[in-house]
């Protein structure tokens, strides 16, 4: 069953905030987009789960790249889960770096599967699984 236009756009908006806050190193703002038991799999050998760990993700990216790492999402498609309060979303996520030492470089491309849950204040991410195609 296709999701409503309103829900589709809410997820697109959520992913916009996800990328902006991640790239800005906004740990608390980024963690606010997740449920308390939010879970990431597929980025490294270990999964990441829970608010305290999730909030460190943007902070560590900022420490590593100083704001020069860029996440973009596209090709979003959405389906309801068992109820209309859960959406399973698929999207592409490309990551590039824009360091002063050279031109912009593709860093990673990942096909992502995401589950989001409806909350009183909007949608929250429960889980994202990344299937990355690393560059050089």
């Amino acid at each position: 069953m296709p999701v409503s236009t309103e829900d589709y756009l809410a997820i697109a908006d959520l992913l916009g905030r996800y990328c902006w806050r991640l790239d800005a190193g906004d740990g608390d703002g980024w963690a606010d987009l997740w449920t308390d038991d939010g879970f990431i799999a597929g980025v490294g050998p270990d999964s990441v789960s829970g608010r305290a760990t999730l909030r460190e993700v943007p902070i560590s990216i900022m420490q590593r790249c100083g704001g020069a790492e860029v996440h973009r999402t596209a090709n979003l498609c959405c389906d309801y889960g068992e109820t209309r309060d859960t959406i399973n979303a698929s999207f592409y996520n490309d990551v590039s770096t824009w360091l002063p030492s050279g031109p912009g470089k593709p860093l990673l491309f990942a096909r992502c599967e995401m589950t989001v849950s409806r909350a009183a204040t909007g949608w929250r991410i429960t889980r994202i699984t990344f299937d990355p195609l690393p560059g050089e």
Partner: protein
Amino acid sequence: MPVSTDDYVAVADHLARYCWKVDTGDVEGWVELWAEDGVFRGTGPDDIVGREALRVVPISVKKRCGDKMAHFAGNLYCDYGETIDTITAHFYNYVTTWMNGAPGKPSVLARSVATLVRNGGGWLIKMNHVDMLTGA
């Protein structure tokens, strides 16, 4: 307060036209997307203010790259301003060039914060403040 579905789609459509018109050298069409006193900030040391001055943007893109520059807007999220007649839109603008049969090259990643004002049934850009990552 989240923006309405209609307003979110209208802003996404407006930004798509912004990309199409600048890439195809449609000078008049591009400046008509702006308010009369629209301000483009962050592309150089000085603001570009007003429709007459803004004409220089698509003209210089065409002069430098012909129709071989491509702007991709993404990661859009929107919030109303003080009233529902103003929207602050955050989006990324990924710019590539495709010159002389050579492979496409990343040119600029612009994190853009645009203020749009409602104009009858549509929207106009009052301010677009870009933070440009250019790599080298």
